[in-house]
């Protein structure tokens, strides 16, 4: 039966060509869009993890509670000992301390009086340790990102290029940080600007300062302290490890965190931070919403195509009914035909979709021309990402839409009365 249907489809291309093209084009677009969205999500995960949350983040419970205001007075102490323990207990992860801080950057004139003063967001990173992961995290090795050179001493800083331009700061100038120490005292600390960075993130480009963590510690009176310790998987891949990270988080918090001690450490995984969990759920809904919309459009088009096909094959259907074929059998064969068409269309669409997705996964689309900045730290190249889901997701709308479209179109067959067939067939 199946062989018979296949022969029919191949020998009468007008029966299958149009639906196959519709399905193939729709699935091609769908697969490409899915891969592109997965690429965007993957990029977002990587950027957020590298710059903000890590795959894990350890803070004190009190710091975590008020983390939006960067409460360095609640930062962790004895961080070196803690890092040693973490590296021993979790050798698969790379651990690095960070200090976030805010303050004013004050640029002096020739008389050492204030020439320019503006708020800055500061980030103390481990820049001077050999092989530090932070150099990769912030993409400092890219010459389009960094003008000048990396800090070689703890009193050297990188400033955002946009801020430096507005403030008239040159590489080699002195910049004074006015902020608060860990204990709340005012700190006035001189740094030397050794490089300018284009972050490509407007909030940071307005005024950000990057300094080696030891420089931040000196300025903020935070010896052997850090606001956060971040943990990263060596391969920087978080996507498939959600369950694993949740288990590790729970085990760590069970062992080290004490609800009655606000200065005890607490660990959060990537999804626990910055509303990532709800964002990822929203992304899932968006993908399934897109799937539904594609299916709906294709269903309507294929329903219409089924109707046209029904009209074209009106005589054939009438003859088959007239010679005694049951209506249900006739519908079953047409549905089977549609599944074959759906499968072939989905296969062709998926193959083409995978091919173009692979191209954009490897080469990406450079969108830097569309942005104000000429050198963007992240996401200047949008890339697709082929996942396991990409391989099969096109078949769901491809098969379902053709099946449902044919089902709707085949209603006409049920309505036809055998008594009228001979008249209709004019025999």
């Amino acid at each position, binding site marked *: 039966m199946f062989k018979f249907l296949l022969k029919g489809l191949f020998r009468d291309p007008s029966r299958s060509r149009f639906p196959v093209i519709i399905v193939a084009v729709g699935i091609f677009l769908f697969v490409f869009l899915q891969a592109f969205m997965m690429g965007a999500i993957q990029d977002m995960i990587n950027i957020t993890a590298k710059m903000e949350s890590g795959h894990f983040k350890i803070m004190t419970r009190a710091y975590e509670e008020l983390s939006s205001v960067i409460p360095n*007075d*609640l930062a962790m102490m004895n961080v070196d000992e803690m890092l040693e323990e973490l590296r021993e207990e979790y050798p698969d992860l790379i651990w690095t301390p960070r200090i976030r801080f805010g303050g004013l950057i004050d640029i002096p004139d020739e008389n050492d009086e204030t020439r320019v003063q503006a708020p800055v967001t500061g980030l103390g990173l481990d820049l001077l340790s050999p092989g530090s992961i932070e150099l990769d995290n912030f993409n400092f090795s890219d010459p389009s990102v960094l003008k000048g050179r990396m800090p070689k001493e703890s009193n050297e800083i990188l400033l955002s290029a946009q801020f430096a331009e507005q403030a008239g700061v040159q590489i080699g100038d002195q910049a*004074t940080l*006015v902020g608060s120490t860990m*204990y709340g005292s*005012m700190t*006035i600390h001189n740094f030397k600007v050794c490089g300018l960075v284009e972050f490509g993130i407007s909030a940071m480009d307005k005024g950000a300062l990057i300094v080696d963590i030891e420089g931040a510690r000196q300025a903020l009176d935070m010896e052997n302290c850090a606001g956060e310790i971040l943990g990263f998987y060596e391969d920087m891949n978080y996507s498939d490890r959600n369950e694993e990270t949740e288990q590790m988080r729970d085990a760590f918090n069970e062992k080290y965190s004490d609800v009655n001690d606000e200065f005890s450490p607490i660990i959060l995984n990537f999804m626990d931070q910055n509303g990532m969990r709800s964002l990822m759920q929203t992304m899932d809904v968006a993908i399934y919403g897109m799937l539904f919309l594609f299916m709906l459009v294709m269903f309507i088009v294929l329903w219409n195509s089924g109707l046209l096909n029904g009209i074209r094959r009106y005589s054939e259907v009438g003859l088959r009914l007239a010679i005694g074929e049951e209506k249900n059998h006739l519908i079953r064969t047409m549905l089977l035909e549609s599944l074959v068409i759906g499968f072939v269309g989905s296969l062709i669409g998926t193959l083409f979709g995978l091919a173009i997705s692979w191209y954009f996964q490897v080469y990406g689309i450079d969108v830097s021309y569309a942005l104000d900045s000429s050198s963007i730290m992240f996401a200047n190249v949008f890339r697709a990402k082929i996942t396991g889901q990409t391989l099969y997701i096109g078949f769901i709308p491809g098969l379902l839409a053709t099946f449902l479209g044919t089902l709707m179109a085949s209603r006409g067959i049920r309505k036809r009365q055998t008594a009228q067939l001979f008249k209709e067939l004019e025999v």
Partner: protein
Amino acid sequence: MNFKRITILILSMIFIAFADFPQGDVLIKKMDEVMTSNTQKMTSKMIINTNRNSRTIITRSYTQGQDSTFTEYLAPPREEGIKMLKLGDHLWTYDPDADRTISISGHMLRQSVNGSDLSYEDMMSDEKVNEDYTATVIAQEVIFERECWVLELNAITSNIAYPKRKLWIDKERYLPLRAEYFAKSGKLLKRMEIRDLMFIDGRWYPKEMHYKDVLNKKSLGTSIIIEKIEFDIIIPNYMFTKAALKR
């Protein structure tokens, strides 16, 4: 008829109740006389208590009138040598390590001084309360075993950190034994209590003051203990210049 009698009775009671209350403005003027002097040199200890630690900062300050104050940090070592100068509405700080004089303005004035319960704005506020507020006596209470007038103060100028205040003024010594500082909405922001007194140069003066920023849940309060104070001494004018910061 009954309504008239009741109204007269209530008004009489109110009149009797407030008949003995002195005028609030007179009281705060007397308080200002006790609390201020033409010039003043003071060495004090600021003890900042948080739920993590306690820190002590020692400063020496010189004050001339209401507008000029020069403060030098004596301890701890990290803060030693830092100087601050207040001239009218302007505030500068000098850090010897950075060798920079920085003007403190805008939102920085609302920040805490050394992590204490006091802000730079608090430090800059004029000491003569009667020039900035109108006062009404609303009650009398006994606190710290002293008879006090309770005053409600409303600011008459808009450029002021606390639009409303409540003071408990010692009936005999005219010292504000307790003060509460409110936002315009009526929300309590800070509380101050004088925990110890000293008798010096013929007047009672606070020896230990305790401040609590009610909004800062992590703070356990800040105590200011005056170790040494001299009134109406001669302070050279150069002390109140920016050049003095670098000396």
